[in-house]
């Protein structure tokens, strides 16, 4: 496994006490009564979060819960940063099914709980860099996408994995506008999807993922710009050819298929050299591959990252 474990910072520097107790309370609630059995099923792996796995660097402080869940780009609920939190209440995340299609041994439609229950949840603290030039540090809960992919048994033809977001303008009022071509589609090369840093995320801050963050199921690829991580996924398709992805189709010169965080390659309209960490006023330098170069740079050996931006 490529994940290095830097020295563990004291817990008090990572999780503020309020959230710590909220999490305890939530875990406590899980243990109470028959009714919570359903809840436990609805929040796969949350109970297993005692086995935390962390990946943080020295001066990375967690972005507060209020910002992580109140400042979102999720155009399905509106283009304003506060729109997802305000509008995502209309999304129903149970029952939820995920169709697995394409170059895969057994194409099937899975109830979400059947899909994620086999995998113990881990907590991963990742930097999250938006293509707009801001960033956060988020304690995601989830499991490596690679574990799921292996279980789904893609065929030898499978070279890419495509993730499709729910398309339902009733539940997702932002889809009534034509600001993007719906449904939202994102994709990864299979080796990117198999990389141990790539996560299927079902929770954040030790709680089930709020709707505005992409409940019930999203992908997080910490070395890529945030838009690569599809949210509220209803379809996973394995393909031989590179899929067409939403932002790349919308503005091919601005958003590439790879979208690896790269301070050397500017967005055509603005610089990507620096970013504003939420909670700070001044900008800081953006790191190649968002600081995960040691883990992932080898995936792109020999590629011209200016061409494959």
């Amino acid at each position, binding site marked *: 496994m490529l994940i290095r474990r830097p020295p563990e910072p004291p817990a008090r520097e990572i999780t503020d006490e309020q959230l710590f107790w909220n999490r305890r309370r939530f875990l406590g609630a899980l243990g109470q009564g028959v009714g919570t059995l359903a809840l436990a099923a609805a929040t796969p792996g949350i109970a297993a979060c005692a086995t935390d796995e962390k990946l943080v660097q020295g001066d990375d402080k967690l972005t507060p819960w209020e910002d992580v869940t*109140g400042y979102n780009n999720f155009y399905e609920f509106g283009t304003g940063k506060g729109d997802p939190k305000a509008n995502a209440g209309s999304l129903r995340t149970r029952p939820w099914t995920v169709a697995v299609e394409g170059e895969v041994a057994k194409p099937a439609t899975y109830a979400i709980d059947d899909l994620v229950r086999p995998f113990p949840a881990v907590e991963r603290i990742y930097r999250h860099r938006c293509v707009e030039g801001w960033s956060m540090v988020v304690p995601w809960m989830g499991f490596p996408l690679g574990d799921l992919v292996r279980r789904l048994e893609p065929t030898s033809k499978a070279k890419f994995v495509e993730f499709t977001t729910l398309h339902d303008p009733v539940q997702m009022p932002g889809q009534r506008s034509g*600001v993007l071509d719906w449904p939202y589609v994102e994709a990864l090369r299979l080796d990117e999807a198999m990389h141990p840093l790539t996560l299927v995320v079902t929770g954040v801050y030790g709680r089930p993922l709020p709707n505005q963050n992409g409940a019930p199921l999203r992908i997080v690829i910490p070395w890529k710009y945030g838009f690569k991580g599809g949210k509220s996924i209803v379809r996973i398709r394995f393909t031989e050819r590179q899929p067409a992805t939403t932002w790349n189709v919308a*503005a091919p010169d601005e958003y590439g298929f790879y979208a690896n965080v790269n301070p050397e390659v500017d967005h055509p309209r603005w610089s990507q050299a620096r970013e504003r960490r939420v909670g700070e006023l001044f900008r800081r330098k953006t790191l190649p591959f968002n600081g995960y170069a040691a883990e992932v740079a080898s995936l792109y050996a020999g590629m011209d990252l200016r061409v494959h931006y």
Partner: protein
Amino acid sequence: MPPAVKPAVFAAAIAPFGWLLYAAFFGDLGTDPVETIAQVTGTSALVCLAATLSITPLRRLTGWNWLIRLRRMVGLFAFFYALLHALDFFVFDHSLSVASILEDVIEHPWVLFGFTALLLLVPLAVTSTNGWVRRLGGRRWQRLHRLIYLIAPLATAHYFLAVKRDVTWPTVFALIFGVLLMARLAYRVPSRAPGRRPLPSAEAES
């Protein structure tokens, strides 16, 4: 002019700044305060610019010649908000590094348009006093202040390029400025006909 008008317009124009001060003091500027300041000051500058440009057409429509006495104040508010907008950008995005600012101006049309619009506003703000109107003479003053016809499209282009995808609001401002500039063409054409009655004006007017 009805006595309450000028104080009311002043209060409306300074309200966004008052809100920013209040919100900054109480830590209420949101998750990205720098972005909040940019949006509030940028939008306010555009609104004041549109208000400035609407004085003459409104005057023509209504015959309320006292409207002209609001124009300098509203125009100066446009400059005030544009300056705050730029300072927010210079200080927090560029840490006041001249090299970094100039690089951004050269490399990104979004910054270039906004920067140019601000630079063009400077001579208009400076020459907004009665003394400067007299020194330049009405005609030259008026010609200089036609720079606003360039500033409005530059500011709008700046707004279009600054948003990622949702161009609803830039489009709204483009339409408003479009109407305000077209209005001038509309009343300029018949003015060539004989017997045109010029508007009485104490000050130069564009």
